[in-house]
């Protein structure tokens, strides 16, 4: 029964949101605004609680087993500390929350992302091989695009940028459009399957 109820709610909201999106009627616009500014945010808040509880359970369980305990304790401290400072001092500019964010999270994340450059350098030496004709075409295209985004000037550069533009405007764009249309049709089909109740994996369980 609970699964059926969830399915009915999902179908009703799916159809209503679809109709609201295309309706210019003032009443429809008001309902759309209420749903997007209020209901949607409430659902998001509940989803966050589920995520936080799940994160807590997984980490506590692994700490008890002694798996990567140090890292997990730091994660849990972060999970508790950030909401605590946010609740006490707020999240605006010049608050402890923002200080932690700007001086701990931003440098850490930038550092991790910067490591990608080293992996790319290593992978370019070991992995980017022209083993076949398609691989060679891909490699040459990548080199042309890379150079066109770099600092190259003069007669050579204008030819290179023209070639890069041609790659972007024709083969790359054709592939992108095909992928986008595929994604669009796939999303539409999946949404319809969920609304009419054919697709039920989102409800969880094996059936």
């Amino acid at each position, binding site marked *: 029964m609970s699964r059926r109820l969830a399915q009915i709610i999902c179908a009703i909201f799916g159809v209503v949101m679809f109709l609201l*999106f295309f309706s210019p009627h003032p009443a429809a*616009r008001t309902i*759309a*605004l209420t749903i*997007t*500014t209020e209901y*949607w*945010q409430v659902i*998001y808040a509940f989803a966050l609680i589920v995520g936080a509880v799940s994160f807590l359970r997984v980490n506590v369980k692994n700490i008890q087993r002694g798996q990567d305990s140090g890292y997990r304790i730091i994660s849990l401290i972060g999970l508790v500390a950030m909401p605590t400072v946010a609740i006490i001092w*707020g*999240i*605006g*500019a010049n608050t402890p929350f*923002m200080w932690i*964010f*700007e001086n701990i*999270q*931003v440098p850490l*994340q*930038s550092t*991790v*992302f*910067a490591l990608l*450059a*080293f992996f*790319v*350098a*290593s992978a*370019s*030496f*070991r*992995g*980017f*091989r*022209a*083993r076949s004709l398609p691989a060679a075409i891909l*490699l040459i295209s990548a*080199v042309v*695009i*890379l*150079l066109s*985004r*770099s*600092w*190259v*000037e003069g007669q050579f*550069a*204008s030819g290179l*940028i023209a070639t890069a533009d041609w790659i*972007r*405007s024709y083969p*790359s*764009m054709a592939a*992108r*459009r095909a992928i*986008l249309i595929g994604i669009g049709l796939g999303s539409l089909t999946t949404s319809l399957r969920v609304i009419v109740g054919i697709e039920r994996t989102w409800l969880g369980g094996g059936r």
Partner: protein
Amino acid sequence: MKLEARHWTFVGLLIVVVGAMLLGVRPDVTISDETQRMFEYIDSLPEGSVLIYSFDHESSSLPEIRPAALALVRHSFSKGHRIIGVALLAEGTGIGYRLMEMAASESGRQYGRDWVYLGFKPQYIAAILSMGESIEKTFPQDYFGTPYDSLSMLSGVVNYQQVAGVVSIGDGNMAVHWIEYGQSRFGIRISSAMTAAMVTTYDPYISSGQLHALIGGLRGAAEYETLLKIGGGGQRGMLAQASAHIYILLLILAGNVIYFVSRRRRD
């Protein structure tokens, strides 16, 4: 510890990038059509136009995206545009505010009169859609908790109809959401500054006109700074980026030479 080949490639990259940064050379760059288009778009907006700058990126891409964002905001302030700053990814919130505050203080723009910062709103699709109906209902107060209707700049700004355009500063697919829900649903003009890796993703949208203009990566930022006739992080980073690119190309070349030589020997 014995150093392997990959460790030497790491060391080489470090030397190349640090060396290029230390040289401090700011190369001139040729302006691409896409950057020129973005410059002309911002430049053509009349004084007093309201623009939304949406900081839709994470801190990981900050070194690449910040120069472009700063150049755009500086340009807007110099043209007398009124700017609304928002963030649809939580990490962009503080970054966006600091950047706008810096650009505003450089050009003597006053908070509340010339620019406001509304902060972060979770659920980006919901936020984009609801701003099309009412910006005040989406952001009842600004980043500091000041009520929307107390900010003089926002007087008369109800929804996208009073906004000249949105500039999404992003490192992912957020500009796609702006296009799908902002441009398609409400007809708001969308432009974007994005990381170089994302530029080709947006080619179909540029071609169809759904994305009005874009600047991509550090090169785009350097080009924009050249057009503005100001220095900045884009020009500063160009030599380091170009050196790293050439270093990687040499590695690809070396890897392929070794591969073909060893294959010939094996055959």
